[in-house]
């Protein structure tokens, strides 16, 4: 029972209280108006942009737990599930309530059969595993070369995300903020898809294995190119340098490199089924450099053909001699 309800308020008290409340409200509004700065903060000299996208490596891996699985087979979903099991299951990487960002390669408005983009079956398998491990939200993003809507639709990635409950983050201009990589020569005040990251606790990079006209190979590290905005094609003049810097931009939780079918020639766009080869291998690795080093073998090339891997290793992004990680090898066709 309200003790004050039996006490009557006379007209004078009411008007006084109304006056005080109105004065307070007006004062607050006036103060707000007085402090409002429509132009925002003035730029300061020598202020720095963000220095990277963050370190999302899994911190609680059990001692001795495998960090790389090389799975042979033809069924992408089975290969991913078996590989994940060999690494201790998705719960080794994703915990209850995690907000997971999956970086796919949706660069081209090209159907999945042409192998130029992340295969939707792999995305679906990864997203499902994240949800099963307790992820609160799974986001999927890329800043494609072509029109983003067409890219996500034609590649089948939008449908795969939709069916699993993952949400696509389109690369709206407002999501890009400048990043300056410490020690970087190329990524300086460069627009990066920072806006996809607020609240993100884990990052999984899912990439196809492809030939690339400039870089010789496009796999996990080259896939990170899709976080860049602006006229990023200028970086093609120093393709090894930019990919090395990309390896410093982000430390992923897990990398899934899909070499079930690889684009052996005429990459990165391909176009003909003749450009593809059934290489029957999927790599799951916490180390992007190690994953890509195995991918280079699928393309029939050596580390010397893909200089950015040695450069990324030297920069501390991972281990180009993937055998040192003692990968678990599986064959799902047996």
């Amino acid at each position, binding site marked *: 029972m309200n003790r004050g309800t039996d006490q009557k308020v006379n007209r004078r008290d009411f008007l006084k209280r109304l006056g005080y409340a109105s004065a307070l409200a007006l004062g607050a509004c006036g103060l707000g108006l007085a402090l409002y700065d429509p132009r925002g903060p003035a730029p300061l000299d020598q*202020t720095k942009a963000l220095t990277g996208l963050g370190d999302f490596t899994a911190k609680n891996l059990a001692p001795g737990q495998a960090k790389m699985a090389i799975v042979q087979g033809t069924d992408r979903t089975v290969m991913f599930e078996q590989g994940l099991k060999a690494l201790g299951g998705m719960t080794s990487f994703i915990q209850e309530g995690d907000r997971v960002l999956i970086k796919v390669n949706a660069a081209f408005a090209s159907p999945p059969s042409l192998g130029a983009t992340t295969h939707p079956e792999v995305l679906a398998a990864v997203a499902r595993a994240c949800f099963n491990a307790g992820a609160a939200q799974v986001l999927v993003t890329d800043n494609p*070369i072509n029109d983003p809507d*067409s890219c996500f639709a*034609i590649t089948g990635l939008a449908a795969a995300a939709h069916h699993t409950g993952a949400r696509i983050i389109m690369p709206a201009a407002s999501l890009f903020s400048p990043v300056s990589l410490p020690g970087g020569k190329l990524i300086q005040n460069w*627009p990066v898809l920072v806006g996809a990251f607020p609240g993100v606790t884990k990052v999984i990079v899912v990439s196809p294995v492809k030939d690339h*006209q400039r870089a010789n190979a496009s796999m996990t590290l080259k896939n990170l190119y899709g976080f860049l905005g602006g006229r990023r*094609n200028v970086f093609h003049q120093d393709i090894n340098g930019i990919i090395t810097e990309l390896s410093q931009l982000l430390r992923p939780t897990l990398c899934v490199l899909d070499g079930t079918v690889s684009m052996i020639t*005429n990459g990165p766009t391909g*176009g003909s089924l003749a450009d593809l080869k059934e290489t029957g291998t999927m790599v799951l690795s916490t180390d992007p450099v190690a994953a890509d080093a195995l991918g280079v073998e699928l393309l029939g090339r050596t580390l010397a053909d893909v200089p950015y891997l040695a450069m990324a290793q030297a920069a501390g992004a991972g281990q180009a001699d993937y055998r040192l990680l003692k990968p678990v090898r599986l064959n799902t066709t047996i």
Partner: protein
Amino acid sequence: MPRRKAKVGPIQKFCSYAILATLGLIFVWLLFQQFRFNPAVLAALQGVQLKGRPQAASGESTAAAAALFPEVPGFSPLAPVQSFGPDNLSDKIDGKAELYLSAGFARMSCRSFNVGDTDQAFVEVFVYDMGSASNAYAVFSGQRRPGSPSISLTANAYATPNALFFTQGKFYVEIVADRASEALANSLQAYAKALLAQIPSEPGATGQAGLFPKEGLAPDTVRLSAADTFGLEGFNNVFTGEYTLKDGTVTAFLAERDTPEQADGEARKYREFLTANGYEKIQSPAAPAGAEIFKLDNSFEIIMVQGRTLAGVHDASSLEAALDLAAILSSRFKVQNSKYGAGSDGADGAP
């Protein structure tokens, strides 16, 4: 009238103070945060320009590009014609743009279609204006899928299970489907023929690559390398062809220059390039007159110049194979030079 105060219990009082304290803390936090701006915001305000999506082509060029794409029954356009110039080609084909740009690319237009009544296939058509027939041949031959059969669509045309690739004059065309089937292949051919009717044909010319001897030559390996052939910077517009001979494998090369001096100059640069990479000059009595032979381990190179023509063999697996091919090449371009006095431009009709 005496003021009456409402009675407030200790719990209510405690809650009130707690709420006020929380509000106070929020106020202090907001005040503090006001002066801790996101550095990215500051950097953005300092003038970093977030550049936008591909530039739209001008209305005139878009209309011209759209006119290239015929209306063919069964082909339902999915989007308007898109056009890209040298400055934004990479917005469509990423790193592959370099291949076209180094070969004189002028403009590319493309359009995607659904094809078929049920279970519609996705088809995309790319028309590259390469500025000249030889440039078009360079990108055509540079991407030739090994083992894919030539087709009679044009002088330079081949098919893969899901696509057609051909040149017509200065245009290089790709018609790509997302699957392979006989019915779809017929549809692609029909579209290609309709497209060819829209593209102005240019008179063909005898390709320099016709000088390559046929015996031992893998026909689908004949290429026109637009730039930096064999890794030598500036060694441009060079025809190459791969041979399997009885004594080993070898690549032939051939380039015609504007003047004999230019051909001599490039031969000298190539010699210097080989020497700088560890090759040694060797002699052989079987070498054609004026030919120079270089060796590195089990790889042999031969360079020859006759008038405006620079030719030779590259990466031969044996000296015998290198000399055999060099002798035939030398005799063929001697005949060619004496017959025409000068080489011809263009690439239509190359093997």
